[in-house]
Structure formats: C-alpha cells, structure tokens
C-alpha cells in the first residue's frame, strides 16, 4: 500500500491573503494527501523547518505580493543545505511570465497562476512528488 503524499502549504512574507492557500490545502486533502498548513507570515527558515519536521514530500508556497523572487531562492537554498533536495516545491499566486524561467531554473517546475484548475495541481503533485517506499 502506498503512503499518502505529505504536503506543507505555506504563506511566506507579510501578505495575509490566504484564500488560495486554504482552498488548495483543502483540495489536496480531499484528493487524499496529508496536508499541513503553516498559517501566515512564515519565514523561509520556518517553512523549511516545517518541511523537515513533517517529513514533507511537497512544499506549496502561496505568494501574491510580488516577493517570490526573494522568497523562492531562499527556500531552495535552505532545502539544499538541509539535504532536502528531493522535496518538490510548487508555487501558486501572482507570478509574472518573465519570472517563470528563473523559477524553473531554481528547480521549481510547478507554477500555478490564478484560474488554474485544482485538478491540474493535484495531477502535477501526484506525478512529481518523490516516490516513497
């Protein structure tokens, strides 16, 4: 029997607009994943430490404020430091087109802008989360 995919959903930065984070958290849970929602205003350090403690397969970052080009590199760097390179990072929010290649380069392939169907996010995670034994 396969284990459930474990997802940490996090809201980094100062922004409090958490509608998207909460809706996706619930949708992933309904899709059979184990979801841990960190709550608001998490630093990259707190997010990575939550991922470590929760043995997460996936980190979902919800960022609408324009701070993603500061937050994402820091999260990726910290994951590498902790040896958590195999944790899949996905980002949802307001991400201008021009930033997408830079995020891809950092290793973030799941980038979901407003209007993305929930099922598409579920499918992406199912297809890309690290295989658990």
């Amino acid at each position, binding site marked *: 029997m396969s284990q459930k995919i474990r997802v940490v959903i996090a809201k980094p*930065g*100062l*922004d*409090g*607009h*958490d*509608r998207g984070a*909460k*809706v996706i*958290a*619930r*949708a992933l*849970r309904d899709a059979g994943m184990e*979801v841990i*929602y*960190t*709550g*608001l*205003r998490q*630093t990259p350090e707190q997010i990575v430490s939550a991922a470590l403690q929760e043995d997460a397969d996936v980190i979902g970052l919800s960022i609408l*404020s*324009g*701070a*993603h*080009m*500061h*937050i994402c590199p820091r999260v990726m760097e910290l994951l590498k430091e902790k040896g958590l390179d195999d944790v899949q990072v996905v980002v949802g929010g*307001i991400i*201008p*087109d*021009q930033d997408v290649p830079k995020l891809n380069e950092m290793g973030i392939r799941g980038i979901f*802008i*407003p*209007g993305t*169907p*929930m*099922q598409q996010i579920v499918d992406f995670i199912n297809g890309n989360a690290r295989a658990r034994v």
Partner: protein
Amino acid sequence: MKGVINPAETGKSRWERETLEPTLAKSPERKGPFTTISGQSIDRLYTADDIADRDYARDVGNPGDFPYVRGIHPSGYRGKLWTMRQFAGFGTPEETNQRYKDLIAAGGTGLSVAFDLPTLMGRDPDHPLSLGEVGKCGVNITSLADMERLFDGISLADITTSMTINSPAPMIFAMYLVVAEKQGADWKKISGTIQNDILKEFIAQKEYIFPPRPSMRLITDIFAFCAAEVPKWNTISVSGYHIREAGSTALQELAFTLRDGLEYVQYGVDAGLKVDDFVPRISFFFNSHSDFFEEIAKYRAARKLWAEAMRDRFGAKHPRSWQLRFHTQTAGVSLTAQQPYNNVVRTALQALAAVLGGTNSLHTNSLDEALSLPTKEAATIALRTQQIIAHESGVTNVVDPLGGSYFVEKLTRDMELGTLKYWDTIDRMGGMVEAIELGYPQKEIAEASYQFQQAVERRDKIIVGVNDYLQTDEKPIEILYIDDSTADTQLARLDALRQTRDNGRVERALDGLRKAARGRDNTMPPLLECVRAYATVGEMCDALREVWGEYEEVPVI
C-alpha cells in the same frame, strides 16, 4: 380544476401551470443550476406576489427618506455623481505622487492610497519580514518625510484622500494631519477616509498586529479625537470588500460587515461617546462582484439595515447617523489572468451594478490586476469605464432606476432577512469580537470559498477563459514590473533619517505613546508628537507591541 379559485392560489402559480408548464414540456430549460454566484437559488420569474408583504412607504421609501432603500440623496446622481476614486500606490512616494497627479489630470476626483505590506504591517523596510515586499503592493511610507513626498504639490485642503490602512491607521493618519498642518490646511475643514477597520482584518484580510481588544481601543480613540479635532474626517470605512475577496457570499459580506459596524458603534458608546457625535462619520466599503442583481440588492438592503439598526438599536436621532454611505470597488478576485482584456467587460458590469445600487464613490479595477499592479494605461481605461457609465449610459438621469422591480425588491428583502439571521447568531456569541475569537466568520468564509471553487471545478459556474472558451494562442500583455530599487531607496532614507533627526525627542515621544497605551489617555496626541519627531511606522508600532503584544490566529481550513 373545477373553475373554483383557491384563495391561496396566486397569479404566479396559475401562470406556472397554464402557461409555463406546456412550454417546458416542449422545450425544457437549460440544465442550470440557476443560482447566483453566491449559490443562492433564483426563481425563473418574480411577480407582485413575491413582494406582497412589502409596504412601500415603510419598507422601501422614496430616495432620501427612511429607510433609504432607494438611496440617501433625494436627487440621486442628478445632483452629484459618485466620487471616482482610483486606488493607487507603488514604489517610492515620488512615483506614487506622480501617479496621483496623472489621475487628477485625467479627471479623477479623489485620491486613494495603497500602501505596501511593510507599511500595512507596521514594519520598517529593514525588518527581516520586509524582504522583497518594499514598494511592491503599494507605496512605502516609513516616516513623515515619506508622507511629505507623497503629497508634494497636492493641496490637502482641496482634495479628499482615502487611505487603506488598518492596524497602523492611527500612525498614518497622524502623518497626514501633520502634512496638512504644514501646508496650512485647517483640520476642521479637511476631509477624507481612513479604512481603520480591524475586525475585517481578523476575519478576512489578516493584516492585524495587536490583539482585538487593544485594536478596538485605538479605533475608539480615533472616533473621539476626530469628533473634537477633525470633524469632517471619515474615521472608519467598515469593509466588506476583503471579506468578499476572501471568498464569502454576498450575504455573508453584507451581514458580517454591517455587524462589524454595529460592533464599532457599541464600542464607541461603551467608551462614552454619544451615538450622533461619531456615527455620521462611519462609512462603508463594499465589493461589487459579477452577479449583477445580487449586488444591487446587497447595497439596497445595506442602507435599510443600517438605518433601522442605528435608529432602533442605538437610538440615533440624527438622520446622518441613519444614512449609510459607501464606497465600492469592483471584484479583484473576479479578474482572470487568462484573456485579460475580458476583465474590462467584467469591471464595467460590476461598476454598473454599484452605480445602480447607489454607491457614493467607486474604484474600478484595471484589466491587468490578476497579473500585477496596473500600468498607467490600464488604470486609465478603468477610470474611463466609470466616466462612460456616468455620461453615456443614461443611468444617472433617474434615481434608483431598478426600484420596484419585483426581482430586485425580493432579492433586497432576502438579503435583509438573511442578514438579520446572521446578526442573531453573532449576537448570541456575545458580539463580533467574540465571534472572531471563536473563528466563526472565518469558518463560514472558508467554507463558502471552497464551495465556490468546487462549483467552478464542476463547471456549474462558468468563468469565461478559465473553465470554458479557452484560448491557447494568447499573447502576453505588457505589465508593470516593480523592481527592487524602491527597497534600496527607502533603506538608504531610513539610515539617513536615523542619523539626522533628534533621536532624544523620538525616544521621549515613544515613551509618551507607551504611557498612553498602558493607561486610558487618548493615543492620538502622543502619536502626533511621535510623527512630528519623525519616528517611523515600525518604531511606533513596536512601542505598542511592547505594551499589548501581537495577535496570532489559529488557522482554519
């Protein structure tokens, strides 16, 4: 039937049986569901029967008459159009100052300041959580010096300014007052609005700093201060906008927002203020979403509910206390990143609903706001949308053109009854502060937003360009890209400020603020002294954090 008319039988049911059913038998209706965007069921037809219990004089009334369903002004927009107030702010104070000058030149009639997240959260640009956020979602204001730059060349005696600021509202308002003073403007004559609505922050937008009770005290301090010193200032804009954006239904937006309003009035009364001294300066701020008639009904019901609550629940005697005034913004959340030009149409319809609902001022969103802050071109189209409604559509010739529509009157009635039910639930919890502490409105909204998302996933609700009518060959549009130079500028300025100001005076002023916070003295006079000494937003908020601590919510999914 045997030709006997059942007294309970109405014209509508006869019509359904004799006219409608044969037609449906031949050509059935579309699959539906026929519901509003809030999930409310809608009948196919409304007739006089649906509003038979409504007494026109008592329950609706003419414009300018209690209970103001048809508007607070007897002459509607024939006297004065709504204020076209476009919310704007980004980057440095100078950049935003230039955008204001452009908006005024383009015919904008009021200013509306968008602050960045560090300012909204009471953090200076050098705080670790400000990383990457300075000047991104709005303008960065660190100290009085920035406020002076923001309004440089704009006479505060001649324009009204709305400021979307909540937890640090007293600090930012104090800065505005000091700039006005330096320009020689009379505090007794200037006008504008601070949002100053902390309850909806706990409920929806989550830009809170202090716990609910000291936060409420800051608000009643402003009520008292303004009643004496800045009598034309709108001390609070009780906001449903963010509640709706967080995913509530139209009814929840209305019910929670007005209940927040009642909470503020109650706290004001408990602080020893007289209802008619401060309630006339309370205004409201609603969303205008995509379901046209539901929105119109919401605004009409809002006026009645407020008028009756002020008169009957609080014993307000002054008609100005009864008259609900409100600003409207079209629904940011309805804008799509896909096929963004469609957003112009969405915004126009939403703006029309707000106008038909009798809004007193209006912000129309720009087509590119699902992608970034608006470009100047996009912001201009948004303003032009309002001007076209005002001058070309003809809807401003008549007061409340939809009054008497069976459908609109019935929806208005339903909104009213639904709101009273929510109020009852919240009253039983002890009030809105208590309901928030229990997580009640937060849970209601989270549930509604999930239900809506599921309706979209099932395609019960079609969003053009998102879950139907997709287009694969879209070309990206030009967007406003805000780089990090603002952070560098504001950090350098903060350093320079700390070296040049009288830091002894700053420390004494902050001590005065702490002392007022610990005791019962009004916090506005010590805040004005802090501002005059060029204390920063972060320093003033930190002083209060030391006294009151910070609020942390238990997240509800």
